[in-house]
């Protein structure tokens, strides 16, 4: 008898221990209709107009919707607008607003909301100083309702490239608390944000696209870095984890996770500051371009999952991309050495590479670059700085020699190339070519698609001829998705579209 | 030998510390054989390492684990202790055998009040008939017995709140609480001053008679057994080499080693014939101190807050030292001798005036271990002393660096030789010297600065008799030949009598008597001088 009680006591203690341990390994039960997405960047801004970091866009893509919206193939589709008319000279955009759309707070979407939102983004509302919150919409002169369901946007000058910026989120009229309590029309409603831990979104039952979304709840969980996310994946505590490298993805159990990949439409660049010695010498820049082996870099940093680049645009941009430039800078050490000798640097030189430490891929690229550039005598010293310092000294201050970074963009080719104009704020490589300036100035006013493509090709060609920097790769986005979910699409942009995701039915 | 009832009989006891490397080492106790008679006080004398403490621990059963008894037996009241199990032996401790130890400062648990610690003796030997009140009563009465006027107060005090003598009394109370038949006292007085020693010995003797406790008294100092022990045994290298009644041992030692111990115990300067220089009291004094008042105030905050003179140790002390003079300064411990010296040397803030005629004043201190810097050689010490004085240039003269260095070296060697240390000592480190040699280096360091006065603070107290004698000779020689004055602080009245023409007696931070040595010592005018002389007489038989 006594022995039995003792056994029960021991067993119950054991059971307690097991339950404690189990408590921390508990997997999300399939019955629960939710998904957990791992993100590596702390979200901070929920205002659709002030958002800057790509990581913030990832989440609010599900909360806010614009007049137009990108799909996962990079197509721009009508969303809150059903149609658009663009005037001949591309200076007036007239949108027809969709009916029957409700905001998360239950109010109906009216053209007046659209006017308020666009004006707010363009900095035209009362109380604003006129500076556009969304910089690209700075050229908007006026927004007004024309007929009952149409909104007319007037621009200061012609711009045929602006449609992709009308993806900016629409919010209720007069609403100014988007940062703390986001209200949009998207498939998910904002529920809560615990800094450093998670953002929770819940299903928008009144979503205008009937039947969507499928999930009741989506949690965006902050992981310290890719490796922390990887352990969480292995652990089953997150369902979707984007931006993996393929060698890490390979470590996952394939019965539990599907690996999806897609081009990211990013341009990873080994940026050379054109304003400093000796990088102001074209021959040196060309030599560097010839000295490096893009395939090896992609192999080391992305385990081969990336598309080699020779120019400032990703092949994902379709016809705007100039295929004739492919292979221009295939590795050729002899040529690189002779170019260096021509420039008077046969013994090479020392140069620093300032990289943001938070991006492993860029740091790794720099490491590989340093090793490869040794062959032509260039001694690349890597200086890691945190993101804040990088933005401050490299991007804004332009106090650097070289850096490695990935340039993200929307699907607008103009957005990709805009920074190569001499006076552009984004021209952190200090590139200056009057021909490029002139060509770029012509693009917004050009309506004809073929002419536009040819202009872009010319710009790309000049950039390549000038070897303005070293273009490395368009890294493939690899996303691990739990096998219990389906319908997830990898976007070639920095967004997570959860509206199509649903549980695997079986 | 007549037949007596032996309460303890140690029978051919041999004890050693075997290790794995050396399973049969030289025994620490070698065939020790003696008995302790009921009711007597038996002295056990020997130098450190002679095995006296091991003997007592063997009787008490507190030997270290590594010790092993090779042969022999110990009988206590007829029972063989070595055949008992640890539990039985432990039951005897405190109840049948009590012990007190040398160092009262650490022998009590600092975290427990004295009363609680004494109570543990009673609770350890479970006596169910005792209530807590009974226990308290027993403790109070025992504290009264060992001479505390306010036993209740002592009960609630922590050990650090008591003086050394008081602590030793508490320990005696603990050992005697259950009225054991045997009390082992392991050097109970060696860290106490003479006056306290006398009172503790008196207390033990009292206990012996009143409570009929047999005492085994262990000491390294043969003179301490005078008038206290009935019989004395002398131990050397683990053997008992001499055993006799106290008077026979002291007055008529048969064994040469015992005789040697006896001479060491008295520093008999009469045989040595020291001759200090004659003093001319009409000359102006080398040192004048007027109205010195000093104390160890704690923080500035504290001093400002209290503003009282309670903390002061010295009260208005004035003295003069004349050229050529060896001035003696005596007093019991805690009377303020050391504070006075620190004030005179300018090491302590004080009020009053100190006037030194010559610029430099030398000092040597009590402890020969710490008087020299262990990191440096003797030569460095001498050079450092020379550099610190203004005499360096005078000795070094001019010339190249090498010339100057050789002149300095010659000077150093000369002074060291004057102090009886040859050139071979130059490059030695202090740890390679004996205590006496180190004190001589300290004197040499003073001499190289050519001071007119050297203050010597108890320089003999840690030295053995022969070293003391040599040092004393050196001091008188210096006094005679260099006309250096000395201020000699000591508790040894022998020495004062021999070499000091004049003496000061200090008590409680004041100078209570001053005069020529013969006047003061032969015809004391003040109580404190009489007390000092009385304690001295009891212990050393002066």
């Amino acid at each position, binding site marked *: 008898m006594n022995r039995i009680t003792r056994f029960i006591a021991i067993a119950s203690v054991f059971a307690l221990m097991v339950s404690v341990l189990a*408590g921390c390994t508990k997997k999300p039960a399939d019955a629960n209709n939710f998904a957990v997405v791992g993100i590596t960047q702390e979200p901070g801004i929920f205002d659709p107009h*002030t958002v800057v970091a790509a990581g913030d866009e990832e989440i609010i893509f599900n909360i806010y919707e614009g007049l137009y919206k990108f799909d996962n193939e990079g197509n721009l589709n009508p969303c809150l607008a059903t149609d658009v008319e663009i005037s001949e000279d591309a200076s007036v955009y007239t949108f027809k607003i969709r009916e029957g759309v409700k905001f998360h707070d239950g109010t109906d979407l009216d053209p007046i909301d659209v006017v308020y939102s666009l004006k707010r983004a363009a900095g035209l509302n009362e109380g604003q100083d006129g500076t556009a919150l969304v910089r690209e919409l700075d050229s908007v002169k006026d927004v007004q309702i024309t007929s009952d369901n149409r909104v007319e946007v007037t621009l200061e000058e012609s711009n045929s490239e602006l449609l992709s910026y009308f993806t900016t989120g629409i919010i209720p009229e007069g609403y100014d608390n988007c940062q703390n309590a986001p209200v949009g029309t998207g498939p998910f409603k904002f529920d809560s944000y615990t800094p450093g831990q998670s953002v929770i979104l819940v299903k928008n039952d009144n979503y205008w696209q009937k039947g969507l979304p499928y999930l009741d709840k989506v949690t965006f969980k902050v992981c310290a870095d890719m490796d922390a996310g990887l352990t969480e994946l292995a652990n089953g505590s997150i369902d979707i984890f984007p931006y993996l490298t393929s060698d890490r993805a390979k470590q996952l159990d394939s019965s539990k996770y599907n690996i999806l990949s897609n081009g990211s439409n990013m341009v990873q660049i080994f940026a050379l500051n054109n304003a400093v010695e000796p990088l102001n010498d074209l021959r040196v820049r060309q030599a560097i371009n010839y000295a490096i082996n893009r395939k090896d870099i992609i192999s080391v940093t992305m385990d081969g999952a990336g598309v080699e680049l020779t120019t400032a645009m990703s092949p994902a941009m379709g016809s705007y991309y100039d295929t004739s430039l492919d292979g221009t800078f295939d590795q050729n050490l002899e040529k690189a050495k002779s170019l260096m000798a021509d420039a008077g640097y046969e013994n090479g030189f020392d140069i620093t590479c300032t990289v943001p430490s938070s991006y492993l891929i860029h740091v790794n690229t720099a490491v590989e670059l340093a090793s490869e550039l040794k062959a032509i005598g260039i001694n690349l010293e890597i200086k890691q700085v945190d993101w804040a310092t990088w933005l401050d000294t490299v991007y804004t201050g332009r106090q650097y020699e070289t850096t490695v970074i990935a340039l993200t963009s929307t699907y607008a080719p103009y957005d990709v190339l805009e920074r190569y104009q001499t006076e552009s704020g984004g021209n952190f490589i200090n590139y200056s070519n009057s021909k490029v300036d002139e060509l770029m100035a012509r693009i917004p006013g050009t309506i004809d698609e073929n002419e536009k493509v040819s202009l872009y090709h010319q710009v790309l060609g000049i950039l390549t001829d000038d070897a303005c920097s070293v273009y490395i790769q368009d890294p493939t986005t690899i996303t691990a998705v739990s096998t219990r979910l389906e319908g997830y699409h990898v976007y070639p942009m920095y967004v997570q579209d959860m509206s199509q995701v649903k549980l695997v039915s079986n | 030998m007549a037949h007596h009832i032996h309460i303890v009989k140690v029978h051919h006891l041999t004890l050693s510390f075997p290790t794995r490397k050396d399973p049969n080492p030289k025994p620490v106790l070698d065939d020790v054989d003696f008995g302790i008679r009921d009711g007597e006080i038996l002295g056990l004398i020997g130098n450190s390492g002679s095995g006296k403490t091991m003997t007592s621990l063997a009787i008490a059963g507190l030997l270290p684990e590594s010790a092993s008894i090779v042969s022999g037996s110990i009988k206590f009241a007829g029972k063989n202790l070595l055949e008992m199990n640890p539990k039985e032996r432990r039951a005897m*401790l405190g109840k049948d055998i009590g012990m007190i*130890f040398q160092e009262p400062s650490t*022998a009590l648990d600092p975290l427990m009040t004295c009363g609680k610690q004494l109570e543990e003796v009673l609770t350890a030997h479970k006596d169910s008939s005792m209530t807590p009140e009974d226990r308290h009563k027993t403790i109070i009465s025992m504290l009264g017995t060992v001479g505390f006027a306010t036993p209740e107060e002592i009960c609630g005090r922590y050990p*650090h709140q008591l003086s050394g003598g008081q602590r030793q009394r508490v320990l005696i109370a603990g050992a005697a609480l259950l009225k054991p038949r045997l009390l082992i006292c392991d050097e109970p007085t060696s860290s106490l001053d003479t006056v306290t020693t006398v009172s503790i010995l008196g207390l033990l003797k009292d206990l012996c008679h009143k409570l009929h406790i047999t005492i085994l008294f262990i000491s390294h100092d043969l003179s301490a057994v005078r008038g206290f022990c009935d019989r004395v045994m002398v131990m050397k290298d683990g053997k008992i080499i001499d055993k006799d009644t106290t008077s026979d041992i002291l007055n008529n030692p048969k064994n040469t080693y015992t005789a040697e111990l006896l001479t060491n115990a008295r520093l008999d300067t009469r045989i040595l014939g020291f001759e200090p220089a004659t003093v001319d009291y009409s000359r102006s004094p080398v040192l004048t101190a007027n109205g010195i008042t000093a104390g160890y105030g704690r923080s500035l905050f504290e001093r400002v807050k209290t503003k009282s003179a309670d903390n002061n140790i010295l009260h208005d002390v004035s003295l003069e030292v004349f050229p050529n003079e060896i001035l003696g300064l005596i007093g019991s411990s805690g009377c303020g001798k050391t504070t006075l010296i620190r004030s005179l040397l300018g090491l302590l803030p004080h009020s009053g005036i100190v006037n030194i005629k010559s610029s430099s004043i030398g000092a040597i201190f009590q402890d020969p271990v710490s008087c020299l810097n262990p990191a440096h050689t003797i030569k460095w010490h001498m050079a450092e002393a020379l550099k610190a004085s203004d005499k360096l240039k005078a000795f070094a003269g001019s010339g190249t660096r090498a010339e100057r260095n050789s002149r300095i070296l010659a000077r150093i060697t000369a002074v060291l030789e004057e102090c009886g240390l040859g050139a071979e000592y130059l490059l030695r480190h202090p740890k390679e010297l004996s205590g006496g040699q180190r004190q001589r280096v300290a004197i040499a360091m003073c001499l190289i600065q050519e001071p007119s006065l050297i203050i010597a603070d108890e320089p003999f107290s840690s030295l053995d008799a022969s070293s003391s004698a040599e040092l004393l000779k050196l001091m008188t020689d210096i006094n005679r030949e260099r006309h250096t004055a000395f201020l000699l602080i000591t508790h040894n009245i022998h020495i004062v009598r021999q070499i000091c023409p004049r003496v000061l007696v200090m008590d409680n931070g004041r100078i209570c008597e001053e005069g020529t040595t013969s006047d003061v010592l032969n015809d004391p005018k003040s109580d404190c001088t009489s007390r000092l002389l009385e304690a001295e007489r009891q212990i050393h038989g002066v």
Partner: protein
Amino acid sequence: MQSKAGYLTGKLIELILTLLLVSLLVFTAFSIIPGDTARVMLGPQASESQVDLLRAQLGLDKPLPVRYGEWLWGLLSFNPGTSYAYNMSVSELIGQRLPVTLGMSAIAMVMVIIISYPLAILSARKPGRLGDQICSVIGHVLFAIPPYVASLLLILLASSLFSLLTVGTYVKPSDDFLGYVGCLLLPSFAIALPKIAMSFKFLRSSIIEQRNADYVRTSKSHGLSDLKILVRHVLPNSNVSSITIISIILSDILGGSLIVEQVFNLPGLGRLLLSAISRRDFPLLSGIVFYLALITVLLYFISDIASSLADPRIRLK
């Protein structure tokens, strides 16, 4: 004799002075960080006028002494301002993370005590015996393994041997207290390991030292049993000297948790700190650093008080 109140006052003044100096150190350090907070918040695309506007809003254009005064007042009134990056009250942010860091530290400390104490007592019973030597050698090895390496090994071990992974699943104590403790067990153990070794070594030598003390001999001569001597004399005395060591260990554990939570992907103060560093979030960063220092200062203060309570001698000084 100085009163206990006087001792406390002295310690308190010391505490306040230390905190002032700490705050000055923290403030100076963060005033010289390169990097413009406003620019970081707005990102590379923002215009200069936007940045200037924000800078003025944040009060970054005021002179340094004014900012120090305002900042210090905020800290002392437990209202250290609003995080630039999170746009939330700093105290709320720290409050959210505190359960992880403090919980982990507390569990680690409990582990240190319940493991090292019995081992030290057992080891000190027979110093030099085989068991003692094995414990000592293991202790040395543990001492030499950095906590994050131990974490890596524990993760490997836990995942391969028990197919359990506790990494990253943080459970809030309000949701499920047992789960909360459970998910902190492994990281706490990783931090505790070297400290167990440290505490073991210290306690062992302190117990051995105390066992050889004179008063133990006195107690033996009074006929006390070994167990009684251990419990009533040896342990209390070695505890007095351990109090300081324990407060040092606690502060080390607090520091160690900053790294280990990174390995285990726990949302603790360490990650908040790193993110605050990289985002130039001055109010948050200084808040974390100051309050962590405050915790440590208070720990030392408490340990001083505890020693003065435990040891009657200290009141004397």
